[in-house]
């Protein structure tokens, strides 16, 4: 699965698409492969404030339950409710239909520490 060039990436394997002061967040192709078949996504609460690099929801597979960190700070504006009945989209389309939550009021300076696609691929190689 190729790493989309138009997104930014965190060291904890989340991707983020920043548009103005809004953002969409999901987990990367590498992350979903490492987790295996996703069985459940515990979505964050709409309206919650999240801080950069802090856990804001949990994603479960048969063999692991991982925290998903917010790559940037903001307020949860929308969550992908289709994941409640179809968590498998995180595996099949992690960068598209498998998006997890959206943020508003994003702190744009947080994006400075994120990696681009090339840097992320190199990071995954080195791990």
């Amino acid at each position, binding site marked *: 699965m190729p790493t989309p060039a138009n997104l930014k990436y965190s060291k904890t394997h989340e991707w983020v698409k920043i548009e103005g002061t809004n953002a969409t967040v999901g987990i990367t192709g590498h992350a979903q492969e490492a987790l*295996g*078949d996703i*069985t*459940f996504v515990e979505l964050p609460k709409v309206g919650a404030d999240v801080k950069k690099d802090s856990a804001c929801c949990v994603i*479960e*597979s*048969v063999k692991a339950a991982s925290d998903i960190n917010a790559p940037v700070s903001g307020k949860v504006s929308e969550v992908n409710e289709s994941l409640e009945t179809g*968590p498998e989209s995180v595996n099949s389309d992690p960068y598209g239909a498998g998006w997890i939550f959206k943020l508003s009021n994003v702190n744009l300076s947080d994006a400075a520490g994120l990696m681009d696609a090339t840097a992320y691929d190199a990071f995954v190689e080195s791990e």
Partner: protein
Amino acid sequence: MSIIFEKSVPGRKGVTLPACDVPKKHQIPQTYRRETDAALCELSELDVVRHFTALARINYGLDTNFYPLGSCTMKYNPKITEKIAAIEGFSLLHPLLPQLRRGGMLTQGALTVIYELEKLLCEILGMDAFTAHPMAGAHGELTGMMLIAAYHRDKGNRKTEILIPDEAHGTNPSSAAIAGFTVRSVPTNTDTGMLDVRALESMIGEQTAGIMMTNPNTLGLFNPQIAKIAALAHKYDAQLYYDGANLNAILGKFRPGDADFDVVHVNLHKTFATPHGGGGPGAGPVGVKKHLEPFLPVSRIIKRSDNTYALNYDFPKSIGYIAPFYGNFAVCLKAYSYILMLGAEGLVEVSENAVLNANYTMHSLKEDYDVPYLKTCMHECVLSAKKQAGHDVHAIDIAKALIDAGFHPPTVYFPLIVKEAMMIEPTETESKETLDAFIDAMKTIAIAAKETPEALRAAPRTTPVGRLDETKAARDMDVCFPG
């Protein structure tokens, strides 16, 4: 096999009760009654007996064959201990009896069992006092953590962290977290398989409330630097906790109390041969040094000057009740009888044979499988399926192939620090012939990994079901039969 509820025939019953011999003058008021009956099954006694007999026949126990799960100590459970626990003077005894006036005198036999077991455990582990209350190993760990918290609170210390090696069993960090501590993981030196003492030195400080250790560790290796670690901990008044899960390796060879451990737990369902019951019950008695004794849970059993035993609740610094009564009494009773049967000599033989069996297994398989730490192991050895990975055969495939060979697989994917880990603990009660049969099966599988890997990936094929869809299980969450 159908679910028991599918076999119900309305109106059928399994038990006939005596007729009511008293006048029925009252009723439960309607407002407190349930709307519809609980839909329990309706079967005859023979129906029930056939159902559970059929279920037993598709279950594999230690009595069936070899069960080499690492760190579980699946040793033989002597039948006499079952008979002892079933004696009516024990099995029919109500736990509230000793809490009646002069009630201790109604339960002297039972109080003797607990008191004497605690005393024997003190001698075996080198500790000053024991409590039999914890109802499982993890419960013992939680109790130990609560004791450490109480100790520091009493001294006015503000210590919030517990340091735990990264190869530790998952119950260690979860018990510490549930007791309200922050957990930090200490790395294992992957070259030596030992706790990285330099890393520990850099992590320990005034905020450290305790360090949890298993020795031998989950790689089956004994850490000879234990005295240094103890001294380091005590420099900061951090309490040193010993996870006794691997006690089967060191009976009569090492006592945590002698190495300055402050608090320990033992797993009676491991080292002391009580049956695992398909997941429980177990028991996890906790031992302490004198300075932690005031905090032990109540009640405690004391021996009076006339040699009778009594319950004592007069411990103002006690952490209180961590069990409803005195622990899993029947489990403690079985362990006590086991210790009395073996004696000191028998317990030493246990460890000597357990360690011999594990080393024999490791040396017999070192040509066929990767051994990450090829040195003398203790009661368990860790192999890895690294060599087989090249043929796309993994630890799970080897495990499933062993099932077709008639064996229960070893523990796989633990400890986490070894990739494709297979942890084998034969225990002392296995004969050389059984070990040789297992070794042969493992050798056959190693060959199959090279020549017919697809056959291994399709295993098991001789069981009532093959590999089950765990993803579907977690997504569907069918945990209750609809009805």
